[in-house]
Structure formats: structure tokens, C-alpha cells
């Protein structure tokens, strides 16, 4: 009898073309997403005068450098204009379908892929971006790669990989009101650390994960890389299948029935073995914010910033001192007493329609005490939000309603947090200088960012809910 398999084993073996004696496997790539940053890889192709092996499985999306404000057709900054043009030229040259600036489906690659039904269960998906782990939410094996690997995938439609260890993170129980997937994933990272899943593919399982919407699962898998994971995956189920119905590139009719039959068999079998298992109680998760310069520096909102003087490990104490110093936070300060200068709602982590609805639910009829930007995850999300009147809520609260792109999560399109400024952000990395040199980032859920906007400081959204639903 065959060994019971995990979803990770099944996804892996379905793509294995060959396994060498040394343990490295050549894997078939079902989807390859490229963006402006892929120019290094296209350059390698040009050097070798090579063609793209699978143009029909390759899709381009303009997201990293695109402006969210001002004209998107006459981009004022010549360097940024060049980055976007370069992608257009490379896609045209190699016959790659591009969701460019003039396409109503443009958006952040990790939002567009699932939204268009390009991302499907059972696929192997790569992209030259670490947050490619996002696509695992649909039951795909999806991971970020570097420029040399992007070039290899472009030229061969395949990639060399060594099979990672298998880890299962089970979150069981009922999520309390006001708690979202962002809180779950920050709680996981705080618990296992920023390298807690290094070398592992992670399956997220348990009743609390099953209960998450597709949007929530996308947020969860998106940040699996922040725990060091190669990829994150949620077994496809009725929620996944319902999400995929009528997506433009997803199968329909009898092809869909056949697909669902295959996808339903992907789930981890009972008693299949994982190399590591971690469990979390959903009921015990509070709204979480980060206080430091790594996503693992995360605490429940009712806690206080750490105090290096109470730390017995001298290296840890030194780390705390430096992180608190960069963040401009007094040791031991209550997190709810930390005043903010700005908010950002956007990014591949938290800019889907449900995220915008959650933030808008808290902001409705209220004013933001600080300036801020809302950048929807895709142009389609933007249009949907406008149909629902969410844009009005954000504007009336005093926030700016922008176009879609990576924007202030990475700041390379010019949307920056100024030096020394403190930003409550729905993004994924609170690294030093991530949102701009000297910027101070606090990561949290969209509802929590809205709560921070309304109060002007880090705040517990549960106290602002009343009968509002997020």
C-alpha cells in the first residue's frame, strides 16, 4: 500500500519531471507571472538570444512601479516610466499576455492571478517575488524565485528544486469578532519566529482555516514567507470552488466538474506524516500589531512594548534596544499609547474587496485623524469598491483613494512614508526603511489600521465596533 500523502507530497509529485540521484527535482511550471522587476531575467534571455518556452503559461502584470496617483499614461518620473515600458516591450517581444496600465484587469500580481482564475488548485506557480506564496490559498504550490530562476523558467518552463520539509500549522476553534486572517498569521509568525518555517512547505489546516474566506486564506498564505516558508498552502474545498466559478481563465462546464474532482483529491490524507506540526487556538487570538522591525515582533494590542531591562539574554536585549530605538518607542510603553502619523491600506497582503470592506466598516461616518492612502489590490477591486460606495467612506474620512499597485508597501513607485514618520499599515514587512528610508511601520489588519486612523494611535478595533461587522 502507498504511504498516506500530504497535499504537499501530492502537489510535488504531480509536477516532478525528473529526480536526480542527488535529490534535486526538475519541476513543471504551470503558471509564471512576471512584472517590471523581471527585467534582469529578460536581459539574460536577450544575452542568449533565447525564446520563452511557454509564452501561453506566462503572464505579465504591471504593479511594482506603477503610479497610484496622477497620470498613469504620461508617467512624470522618467525612470519609473522606463520600468513600465520595459515590461510592455518584453511581453510584446515574447508573446506574453500583459495586464498593463491600460488594462481594466491590472492590479497587484498576487491579486490579479486568483481574481482572473489564472491561479488554480493543483498548479505549480512561480514569480520573481517572494509573496508568490499567496497563491497557495487556492491549493496551488506557489513560491517566489530570483532573477536567475526566472530566466530559467522563461527559457525552459521548468525549475530545479529540492523537496522541502513538510510542516502543518493547525488553527482550530472559533475566531472572536474583529479578528481576521492577518491576526492569525501574525500570531503564527510571533509564535514560530521569522525563520520558524525556513526550509518548509507549510499546510494551513484546522477548523479556523476552513472557516476563512478565500480573501482570508490569501492573506494567510501571503505572509507564510514572513515565517521563512518556501510556500503556504490551504487544501481546496467548497470555498475555493465557489470562488473560482466564472473566473475568466478558470475552467467551466464539464471541464470544471472534472477539475473539481481532481482538486478534491489533493487534501492531505488522514495519518499522513508531517516533519513538523504546530497548533494554535483561534479563540485565544487578539488583534495583533507589530512593534519592531521584523514581522515576528508582534504582540496583542493590549500588551506593552518590550523592555530590554527585563530581558535576561544580552543579545536579545540588544536586539530589543535597537529595534525600539529605530521605531522611536519607549521601552514598556503601552501599544495603545503609540501615536501614528499616517495610514496605508493596500498591498498583496490586504487590499482585496473584503479587506476594504472591513476598513470601511470601521471608518464609516468617522474621520481619520491622520493622512493616509488606500490603494486597492486591483483595478477590478477598485471598481467593485466604488460600486459599493466604499471609496466615498474613505474619502469622507479624509483618506486618499488611489489606483492599484504595490504602492507604499515597497515604495518604489514613489509612495513613501517620510523619515521618522510612523505608519499603521496593512502590508507585510515592517523592515527598517521598507516603506522609505527611516520609515516606521506597524503591521496590522485593515480593520486595525482603520481603528488607528480614527483614534490617531494604535488602537483595539473591538472597542470601536459596536454593532458594526468587520
Amino acid at each position, binding site marked *: 500500500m502507498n504511504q498516506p500523502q500530504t497535499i504537499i507530497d501530492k502537489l510535488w509529485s504531480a509536477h516532478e*519531471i525528473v529526480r536526480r540521484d*542527488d535529490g534535486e527535482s*526538475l519541476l*513543471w511550471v*504551470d*503558471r509564471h507571472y512576471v512584472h517590471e*522587476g523581471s527585467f*534582469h531575467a529578460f*536581459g539574460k534571455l536577450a544575452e542568449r538570444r533565447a525564446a520563452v518556452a511557454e509564452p*501561453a*503559461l506566462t503572464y505579465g502584470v504591471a504593479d511594482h*512601479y506603477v503610479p497610484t496617483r496622477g497620470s498613469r499614461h504620461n508617467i512624470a518620473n522618467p525612470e519609473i516610466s*522606463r520600468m513600465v515600458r520595459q515590461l510592455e516591450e518584453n511581453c510584446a517581444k515574447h508573446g506574453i499576455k500583459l495586464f498593463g496600465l491600460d488594462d481594466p484587469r491590472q492590479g497587484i500580481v498576487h491579486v490579479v492571478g486568483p481574481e482572473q*482564475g489564472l491561479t*488554480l488548485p*493543483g498548479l505549480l506557480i512561480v514569480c*520573481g*517575488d*517572494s509573496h508568490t506564496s499567496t497563491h497557495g490559498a487556492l491549493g496551488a504550490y506557489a513560491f*517566489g*524565485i*530570483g*532573477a*536567475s*530562476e526566472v*530566466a*530559467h523558467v522563461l527559457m*525552459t*518552463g*521548468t525549475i*530545479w528544486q*529540492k523537496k*522541502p520539509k513538510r510542516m502543518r500549522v493547525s488553527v482550530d476553534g472559533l475566531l472572536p469578532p474583529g479578528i481576521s486572517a492577518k491576526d492569525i498569521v501574525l500570531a503564527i509568525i510571533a509564535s514560530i519566529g*521569522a*525563520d520558524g518555517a*525556513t*526550509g518548509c512547505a507549510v499546510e494551513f489546516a484546522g477548523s479556523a482555516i476552513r472557516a476563512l474566506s478565500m480573501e482570508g486564506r490569501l492573506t494567510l498564505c501571503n505572509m507564510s514567507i514572513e515565517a*521563512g516558508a*518556501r510556500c503556504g498552502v490551504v487544501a481546496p474545498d467548497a470555498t475555493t470552488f465557489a470562488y473560482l466559478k466564472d473566473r*475568466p*481563465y*478558470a*475552467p467551466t462546464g464539464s*471541464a470544471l466538474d*472534472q477539475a473539481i474532482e*481532481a482538486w478534491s483529491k489533493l487534501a492531505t490524507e488522514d495519518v499522513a506524516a508531517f516533519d513538523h506540526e504546530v497548533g494554535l487556538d483561534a479563540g485565544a487570538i487578539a488583534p495583533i500589531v507589530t512593534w519592531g522591525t*521584523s514581522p*515576528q515582533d508582534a504582540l496583542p494590542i493590549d500588551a506593552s512594548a518590550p523592555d530590554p531591562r527585563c530581558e535576561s539574554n544580552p543579545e536579545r536585549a540588544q*536586539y530589543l534596544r*535597537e529595534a525600539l530605538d529605530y521605531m522611536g518607542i519607549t521601552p514598556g510603553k503601552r501599544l495603545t499609547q503609540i501615536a501614528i502619523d499616517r495610514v496605508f491600506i493596500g498591498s498583496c497582503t490586504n487590499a482585496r474587496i473584503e479587506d476594504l470592506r472591513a476598513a470601511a466598516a470601521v471608518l464609516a461616518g468617522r474621520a481619520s485623524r491622520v493622512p493616509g492612502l488606500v490603494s486597492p489590490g486591483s483595478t477590478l477591486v477598485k471598481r467593485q469598491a466604488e460600486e459599493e460606495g466604499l471609496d466615498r467612506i474613505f474619502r469622507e474620512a479624509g483618506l486618499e483613494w488611489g489606483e492599484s499597485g504595490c504602492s507604499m508597501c*515597497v*515604495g*518604489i513607485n514613489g509612495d513613501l512614508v517620510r523619515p521618522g514618520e510612523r505608519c499603521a499599515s496593512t502590508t507585510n*514587512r515592517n*523592515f*527598517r*526603511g*521598507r516603506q522609505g*528610508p*527611516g520609515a516606521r511601520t506597524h503591521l496590522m489588519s485593515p480593520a486595525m489600521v482603520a481603528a488607528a486612523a480614527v483614534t490617531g494611535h494604535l488602537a483595539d478595533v473591538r472597542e470601536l465596533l459596536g454593532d458594526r461587522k468587520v
Partner: protein
Amino acid sequence: MEKFTKLTGTACPINQSNLNTDQILPARFLKWTRAMGFGKALFHDLRFDAEGRDKSDFPLNKPAWRNATIVVSARNFGCGSSREAAVYALYDFGVRCVIAPSFGDIFAGNAVQNGLLTAGVTDQEAAEIMESLAQMPELPVTLDLDQQTIRCGNRTYKFRIDPIRRMRLLNGWDDLALTENYRDRIRAFKAEDKIKRPWAAPREQL
């Protein structure tokens, strides 16, 4: 790709855990081409102040380590963004090896593609090597990839590296040349897979 066999040089200790690729190369330099030389921007915001002056307390700015070919650091070096330009920055600066207790997966993959050695040691050993270098900054450090050893003063440490990555570095193998040998297998897989997973292809757009 250049082969890696042995290396002797000065080693710069940067005692920070989770030193992510945004620190190694801030995102605003990602527009650069390789010809511009990413070495200038290595650790930019840790190395230079807002006016572009050297920060004197950053190790790479100390006279002994300005030409370091080895970096020694703490856990989870190179975590975060997949930007391969972080490896270009180290390499273009002259760094050929990073010694640390653990590395970001994508970074370690990018490193091997560019001939940069990632040598894994324990937390304790990394701390010990950094301490030795703090005492004697110019202490030469030797890495022997064949033997998987680090020689630092009168101490010798074994280091960890994935055996596949080790072979690649030792031989200077190029992925594409390797894959070329499997063209037929790829073609056969593709044909079979089309029948096995018809749903995997994106639906044709009208």
C-alpha cells in the same frame, strides 16, 4: 558561473539576526542594471547616513573590513524579498561568502546561482567567529568548500551546505546547461500531463 573551491580573506562581522534583503539592498536601487555595479549600494542605509556619509559604527566602514570578502552574521540572513540584486550587491562589493546560522531560502538559492557561498554554522559558532574578529579584525579566515571547513585563527569549524549546492559551486554548474540534458523528458512530461490534467491550462480567451 565562477567556481568556488577555496577562499582566504578578511571577514566582516555584522551581528544582526534577520538581516533581510531590504537591508542588504534597499528597494530603490532595484531599477539599476548590473553594469552600474550594485556594490556601491550594499547595505546602503546601514552603511551611509541621509547625506551619504559613512556611518562610522557600521562594521563594513571600519578600516580593517572595507575590503572584506566574507561576511559573518546571525540567524536568518537574507530573509524577505526575493530580489537577486541583494546577491549582486554582495558579489559586486567583493563578498564571496556569507557565514551565518541560517539563511532565507530564496536568498540561498540566488546565492548559489551567482557563485556566492552560504556557509551554515551554529548560533554559538557564528557568535564565536564574530567575537574572534572583534578581537582581531584582520584575522584571515579561510573557507574550504571541498572539506566544508572554516579556519579562523587557530580554530577550525565544519560548516553546513546543501550537498547539491556544494556540487554546483565546486563545479560552477549552470542550471540551463544542466536542463538542456532533459529536453526530451520535459517534452514527454508536457504531452502526458496535457491528458492527465486538461484543466491545468488557462481557458482560451476570446
